[in-house]
């Protein structure tokens, strides 16, 4: 099915919570064949499973539906196909919501495909009875003792089901859990007719997918020499121009901010890379030490010569389980003697809790003095008068709840599309909370009559 010489694939969403402007601008600002969107992290599946338990119509990335509402007419007009793992633990419900967007915009003939089979929560007991141990890959522990606490269990599916959906004419492909690079490899398999035996091509697709998967992290976001990156606010999200032989060029749309250079791309290649010679996916084992990387200038970086080895016989399973509770709070303490007073304040909290019978052992409590080198604890900081870290607090208010909420969705994206060293986002997106107004006034005393009534407990029940 060799429809084109070169296929343009972009990724507009590095994670659930990334800015909506990435994909919106990718659709508007230049040519594109495929838009991929990555919404799932390990903990995301568990959160979605919880949402689905409460409401059977939930459990997918609702951001995806909001995005389509904004870009679908234009995407269909330009012939851009969309591949997203937005299905979470409820891809069918996601599909229903997407079809509702299609209906709302009066679009005809839009085909929405759903890839399922990753969710094995319902089959877990049967699989264990059949002899699967699900031993923890990191600790070697058996699953049985925590089985009852498991809240989600998903297999990382590969790229071939996505290719099959595209082969069947899908305009939009919705998946649950799959590998992140699979979102990019699937369209390449579909376009170039690659098979399971095309190991070098599949490995090249894996490298391309790894470069794209965190959005702007390969176009100058989170880049060491951040001072040299121009127009970070309007940073371009990455695009891969791929050929059938597996060579590809990383680029971005003309006129967008940021930069694609050998160095920005290698930054992303080294992100969460593990053992570079053995990058394992369900489709292939890619060798990240095998390829050549050439900076062609003009925001174009070419990668060639990627080698791959046969895939392993196993899928990776990602499970989440109820592992306790947590709570974090913070106060700001000014000088003079800010640090000494903060230490005292911390001691007071633990002492008062202990007095009341609540002891928190060392490994179950956190004490951080943000501003006193929390991020780089123990690392010597040579000759600088700069504070070692700064907590950025931004806020908005107003009568329009949606407008106030929109603000909150532009903070976390800075982790991948802003300067380096941004962290502390675990609380997620700030949400609008209601402002409770205070309204003091006066009223003539004659307008108010006070009454007194006395009640007492009656035999057989309250009065």
């Amino acid at each position, binding site marked *: 099915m060799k429809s084109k010489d070169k296929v343009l694939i972009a990724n507009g969403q590095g994670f659930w919570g990334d800015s909506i402007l990435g994909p919106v601008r990718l659709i508007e600002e230049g040519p594109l064949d495929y838009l991929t969107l990555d919404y799932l992290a*390990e*903990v995301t599946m568990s959160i979605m499973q919880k949402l689905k338990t409460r409401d059977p119509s939930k459990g997918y990335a609702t951001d995806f539906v909001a995005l389509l509402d904004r870009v679908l007419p234009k995407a269909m007009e330009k012939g851009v196909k969309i591949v997203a793992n937005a299905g979470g633990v409820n891809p069918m419900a996601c599909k229903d919501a997407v079809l509702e967007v299609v209906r709302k915009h009066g679009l005809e003939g839009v085909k929405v495909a759903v890839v399922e089979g990753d969710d094995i929560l319902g089959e877990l007991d049967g699989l264990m009875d059949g002899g699967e141990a699900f031993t923890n890959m*990191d600790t070697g522990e058996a699953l049985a003792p925590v089985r009852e606490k498991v809240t989600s269990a998903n297999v990382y599916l590969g790229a071939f089901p996505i290719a099959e959906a595209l082969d069947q004419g899908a305009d939009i492909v919705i998946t649950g859990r799959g590998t992140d690079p699979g979102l990019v490899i699937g369209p390449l398999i579909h376009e170039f007719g690659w098979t399971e035996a095309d190991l070098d091509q599949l490995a090249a697709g894996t490298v391309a997918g790894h470069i794209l998967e965190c959005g702007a*992290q390969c176009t100058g976001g*989170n*880049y*060491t*020499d951040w001072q040299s990156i121009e127009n970070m606010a309007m940073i371009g999200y990455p695009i891969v121009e791929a050929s059938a032989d597996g060579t590809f060029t990383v680029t971005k749309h003309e006129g967008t901010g940021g930069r694609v250079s050998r*160095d920005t791309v*290698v*930054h*992303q*290649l*080294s*992100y*969460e*890379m*593990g*053992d*570079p*010679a053995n990058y394992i996916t369900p489709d292939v084992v890619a060798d*990240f*030490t*095998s*390829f*050549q*990387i050439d900076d062609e200038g003009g925001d174009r970086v070419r990668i060639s010569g990627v080698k791959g080895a046969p895939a392993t016989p196993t899928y990776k399973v990602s499970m989440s389980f109820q*592992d*306790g509770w*947590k709570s*974090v709070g913070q106060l700001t303490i000014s000088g003079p003697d800010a640090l000494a007073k903060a230490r005292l304040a911390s001691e007071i909290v633990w002492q008062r809790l202990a007095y009341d019978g609540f002891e928190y052992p060392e490994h179950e*409590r*956190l004490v*951080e003095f*943000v501003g006193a080198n*929390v*991020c*780089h*604890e*123990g*690392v*010597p*900081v*040579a000759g600088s008068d700069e504070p070692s870290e700064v907590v950025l607090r931004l806020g908005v208010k107003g009568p329009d709840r949606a407008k106030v909420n929109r603000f909150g969705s532009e903070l976390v994206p800075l*982790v991948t599309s802003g300067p*380096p*060293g*941004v*962290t*502390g986002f*675990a609380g997620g997106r700030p949400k609008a909370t209601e402002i409770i107004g205070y309204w003091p006034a006066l009223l003539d005393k004659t307008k108010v009559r006070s009454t007194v009534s006395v009640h007492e407990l009656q035999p057989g029940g309250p009065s």
Partner: protein
Amino acid sequence: MTLTTLDQIAYARSGDKGEGSNVGVIARSDAAYAFLREALTEEVVREHFKGINHGGVRRFEAPNMGVLNFLLEDSLGGGGSASLKTDAQGKTHGLALLRMELDIPDDVLRSVGS
């Protein structure tokens, strides 16, 4: 030899990998890579991160990219959603490594234009 910080001759990018962090060090030149392969050992990196990492350190090499990739095996205070730390994903560990002071040969410094 000049005593200066690692950021003069390398970039870095970091993130989480299970209960530890993955810190990629990217040499700014071929000469810098050759120097760092010798100087930036697992032991040196482990010592540098002793206030953050409570496990081992493993190093991988990707010479085609000029990358030394380090895994700090217990550096996130639990990892995933179990961590209470501000930097629960190790996002700032790359910059922490670039703050390392070391004696860098002058030809290596010249190779990166500083």
